[in-house]
């Protein structure tokens, strides 16, 4: 994991040790697509898929990261589970929760093993115009900075004494002011960053019709093995007749 002088992660937490890191981004997109379709299956099949998918994440050394992402959703999952249980049925509560956990795991898998430029390449291969693919990649990259920028703002405001007012729930006005002192610089910085990146892109010939990509996507044997393996398992689950 990359860290700056603030001890915080940089743009992205790319898991370099995962075997999926070297896999073609199109393969990973295909896996994401398969997993997204699999969540539509009935409970027993989702449960089987859930087990297989998390075994796959464990093999790919991505389980701790995926669990961290899922843990961040704990309150949403808990509320949905309780509401579904009370309003509809326990079965629906379980299946909805499993689906959300799988989707969160899929995103964790993709974004912790794919850089924005790889995402851009995959999108261009999928006939997305370069300007949109590049912009999407940049946005994806910029999202990674939000956490570190937020902490820098918090520190800077503390350092100037802007957080000198009493804290706690008994002082709601002061809490709102604190939030404003963090949000305004965050929004300003995000807007400035977006504008500066636009300037930088244009200053380097963005939108040139002569552009030739330096890196090319290449499906290796491992990629084909993963894609065909995933397809085989997917078909197996689909064709499984439930009692």
């Amino acid at each position: 994991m990359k860290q700056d002088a603030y001890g915080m992660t940089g743009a992205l937490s790319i898991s370099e040790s995962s075997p999926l890191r070297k896999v073609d981004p199109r393969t990973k997109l295909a896996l994401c697509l398969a997993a997204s379709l699999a969540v539509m299956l009935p409970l027993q099949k989702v449960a089987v898929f859930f087990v297989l998918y998390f075994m796959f994440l464990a093999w790919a050394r991505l389980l701790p990261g995926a669990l961290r992402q899922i843990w961040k959703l704990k309150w949403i999952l808990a509320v949905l589970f309780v509401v579904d249980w009370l309003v509809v049925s326990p079965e629906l509560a379980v299946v909805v929760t499993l689906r959300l956990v799988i989707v969160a795991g899929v995103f964790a898998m993709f974004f912790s093993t794919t850089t924005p430029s790889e995402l851009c390449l995959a999108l261009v291969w999928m006939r997305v115009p370069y300007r949109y693919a590049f912009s999407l990649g940049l946005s994806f990259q910029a999202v990674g900075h939000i956490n570190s920028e937020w902490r820098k703002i918090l520190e800077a405001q503390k350092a100037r004494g802007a957080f000198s007012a009493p804290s706690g729930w008994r002082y709601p006005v002061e809490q709102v002011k604190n939030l404003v002192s963090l949000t305004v610089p965050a929004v300003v910085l995000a807007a400035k960053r977006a504008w500066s990146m636009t300037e930088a892109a244009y200053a380097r010939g963005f939108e040139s019709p002569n552009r030739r990509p330096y890196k090319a996507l290449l499906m290796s044997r491992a990629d084909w093995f993963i894609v065909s393996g995933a397809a085989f398992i997917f078909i197996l689950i689909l064709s499984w007749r439930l009692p």
Partner: protein
Amino acid sequence: MAVIQVNDLTYAYPQGRSVGPCSFTVEKGEFLHVTGSSGCGKSTIARCISGLIPHIYHGKMTGEVLINGRSTLSTRMWELSELAGFVFQNPSMQMLGNTVEEEIIIGLENLGLDRAEISGRLEESLGRFGLDSLRGRDPQTLSGGEQQKLALAAITSRRPPVLVLDEPLSMLDVSAATELTRYLSLLSRSGTTVIAFEHRADYLSSLPGVRVMALDSAASVKFSRRRASASCPDCKCGAKPLVISNICVNAGKTRILENMSLTVQSGSVTAIVGRNGTGKTTLLRAITGLQPFEGSVTVNGKKPDFGLVCQNADLQIFNAAVRSEILYRVNNPDMKLYARLLEILGLGRYENTPPLILSEGEKKRLALATVLIRKPEHGVLLDEPSLGQDAAHKHTLMELCAEIASTGKTVILTTHDLHLASMADRIVVLGPDGVTASGRTEDILADDSIWARAGMFVPGWITEDERKGITA
């Protein structure tokens, strides 16, 4: 033949601020150094030359800019980017790549070069700017100086016939700045037209064949050679020194500061200098308690109370007007001090102006005012306070520092600007192994061996007068 022709150029931002009119020409292979006070429009003119104005800015531009006879108005932006490369003032906001390598490759891909050519240029740029060992790093995790070098590498690898640089030296240490100016001089001699908009004039004025153009009269203000303060040398005001004992700071697995010990006298202005990435900002953050560390930082055995002015003023500014920004959550504000801060920091006319539309230099001075109005008990810490500031404002800044120090408080600033450092009472030199030396400014400046150990040197234009601390 003139490569750049600027004819009666004016530009008005949609918010109302305007620049110009100005006219000038630049010949092929010429090295033009453009100076001007903070906020006089240097960055705007740089953007007009590079074509970003009028292509992506939507204010009102009159007059014209011609590059190789082609008007920036009628030439497409991607074509202009091949004619004039532009290096921006704040590199950290403009990194497009996920790694150092990618950052350079993006611009080369847009030129339509084949892979072999891109590889060749990539290696050449990484080598020239000393970025080889950083090639796989995320640009956002680099120091300010490293980012500045990367921004330069990304643009110069495209080999544009005209290179426009907005404050290219602001984040570089003395060695890197000297190295860069030499490189720019070399580029200019080999036929590239170089236009540098830069406050740190001495680095450029020492080069042969550099033409200087001042955008306003304030630009000609010479940097004062007066020592900041000789205040409180035998401090009788009872203020105790800041004692830093064996502090260690880690960022992940990297140790940034290791067993650093330092005593900083109260009632003095201390400048911390060192090469990029030696931990200057980290040290300030540790002193304020923002950075977790092992060891101790105390004043009179207690945790110190310092105000910190960050390198990036945008982090600290959020109110609707300069007045409310300075007085935000200040209990019983000292209005005399408020009025004096407005006056000496040149913010008087902006009292009711939204801070966000101030220039970078003005924002920096505003951030300083927000800290000073609180009268922090032990003093203030300034992280690179001279960034984006002209000579007159640097001089004012050091006068202010001297005034604060004369009350027995401690002023610590980090800087790459040796002019600024030479006006402090004391200098601390940080090297790869921590504190290389600490002492009176004249002693430190006179000892070349100290600078050599820190991988730096005192340039020739830091005159003997400055070395000896002779006051103006």
